[in-house]
């Protein structure tokens, strides 16, 4: 085997890190500077953008809204996708190609287009969902569906589902019992991947949130958009806070996953 060229390898990693981290560091620096217009470095350091941000009731509410609607959509996705994937894999494996096709449908229509359609359908006299978080929940379900289904389906394909359930049945378990004691615990990886992917995707979602609900149930992204006329330092503080909250939630979820 050839000796790895460690200098070359290292530089690739360093370049990658720089591309990933520099903009974030820049944003962080911008959010704590008094002003930064003439020199290579900011003129002064301040926390005033953060104090005014966290004093803004509207921001806290938006953050809360974002987290709530994302978690709600994730819950809905998992409650629907996990049993569906199980039923497809265990009872109707011939439906797998069909499932692979329908979960790709949300990709076929860009959010701008489908949100206009949803606006039309759900703003009539019978069902008025636009402007409420409920329509966002539904729209987000379609966004999260492909990622969740794929992650869970891949996990399920790696389990020896048929034999495991046969063994469980012969040992006296009902299918229902076997699902909760054997199938679900073994889907942990798929569930985790699906949760992380979908959560980070949904919390950054803007188009659906802005068009379907707007300021009536303001999410972080919509708030950020509506604050665009305020100082760039303030916007940077929003981005950094939002980023930190996601990191925090990821760590918490990771801890929780390890404990299980």
């Amino acid at each position: 085997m050839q000796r790895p060229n460690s200098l070359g390898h290292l530089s690739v990693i360093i370049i990658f890190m720089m591309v990933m981290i520099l903009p974030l560091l820049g944003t962080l620096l911008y959010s704590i500077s008094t002003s930064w217009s003439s020199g290579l470095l900011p003129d002064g350091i301040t926390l005033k953008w953060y104090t005014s941000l966290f004093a803004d009731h509207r921001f806290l509410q938006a953050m809360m809204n974002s987290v709530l609607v994302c978690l709600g959509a994730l819950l809905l996705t998992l409650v629907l996708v996990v049993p569906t994937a199980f039923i497809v894999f265990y009872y109707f494996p011939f439906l797998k190609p069909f499932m692979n096709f329908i979960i790709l449908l949300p990709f076929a229509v860009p959010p701008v287009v489908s949100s206009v359609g949803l606006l039309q359908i759900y703003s009539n006299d019978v069902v008025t969902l636009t402007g409420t978080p409920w329509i966002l929940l539904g729209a987000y379900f379609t966004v999260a569906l492909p990622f969740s289904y794929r992650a869970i389906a891949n996990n399920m394909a790696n389990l020896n589902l048929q034999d495991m359930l046969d063994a469980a049945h012969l040992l006296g378990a009902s299918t229902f019992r076997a699902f909760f004691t054997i199938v679900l615990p073994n889907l942990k990886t798929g569930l985790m991947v699906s949760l992380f992917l979908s959560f980070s995707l949904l919390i950054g979602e803007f188009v659906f949130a802005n068009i379907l609900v707007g300021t009536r149930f303001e999410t972080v992204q919509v708030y950020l958009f509506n604050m665009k006329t305020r100082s760039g330092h303030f916007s940077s503080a929003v981005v950094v806070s939002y980023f930190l909250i996601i990191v925090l939630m990821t760590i918490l979820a990771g801890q929780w996953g390890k404990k299980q």
Partner: protein
Amino acid sequence: MSFLRVDGLEKKYDDSFVFSHIHFSLEKGEFVTLLGPSGCGKSTLLRCIAGLTQVDDGQLFIDGVNVTDTPARQRGIAMVFQSYALFPNMTVRENIAFGLKMQKVPPSEQSKRVNEAVELVELGGKEQRYPSELSGGQCQRVALARSLVVRPRILLLDEPLSALDARIRKNLREQLRSIQKELGLTTLFVTHDQEEALTLSDRILLMNNGKIIQNGTAEEIYTEPADAFVVRFIGNYNLLSAEQAHQVLGIQSQKQVAIRPESIYVREEGRQYPEHVRHPVRGEVVDYLLLGNVIRYRIKVSNVELLVDLLNRSSERLFPAGANLELLFNTHEIREVDEENSAIG
């Protein structure tokens, strides 16, 4: 009365039969092997007996009771799978205890029985490991313990050793057999490996194309093959067409003729042969293979190649390729066999 009786079982998928007219029975405590080539329907038959797959026709009796329509988990049948089918989220101990938990056995009794099972399959000290931390052989021991701990009436094993390497396979199969004898378990063991079947079983059911071709002891199957399929499947036999049999042995036969390699002799000068060792012919050694205590010669007689097994005695000389020899045949061991019946239905 037999403990398990299979009476005319039949199964088809989309109008094509997997098996049909399956009749056999197992005595209590018997170790029977279901032997047959891949795809002949062994797994499907086993699953039907376990109740995991519905049969289309026929009946199944355990201890005299018709269980054809009894759900799998009430049949008292345990099964070991080729894939082990362990639960990856559970430790060895939890895996083994699973069946007892489902049967709501009290915890103290559970723990006692799990300990016994762990002891039986020699997995002491590995109780807290997860299946991913075990070797294949150890996994299969866990699967075996998990099946035995619920004290099944019948144990089914579907190629349990096929995924293991040769040395472990041999070890484990002897252990399996001794556990089975110790517990007096009625066992149906599926394999496609004829050596495994011949060495392990009280009795063998030989299956081909969804039919049971022969039902007998290893000895019977080996010496009295039911048809040409059995001859080919058991291996090493010389199988001659009627025409070749006439050429080599000078006998008139309507059927194919099977001759075991060890029933052919090389004539030695000055030795007396019994009356039934006859049909002298001359042949030429093509090559030979040393199989430990036996040397297997390929010998050409006119245009027919015969396998001839001779004991590897050091005093005896080795016949080199090209050597011209005189062969004799034990006429008691010459079998006429039917062509295999390949039609299902």
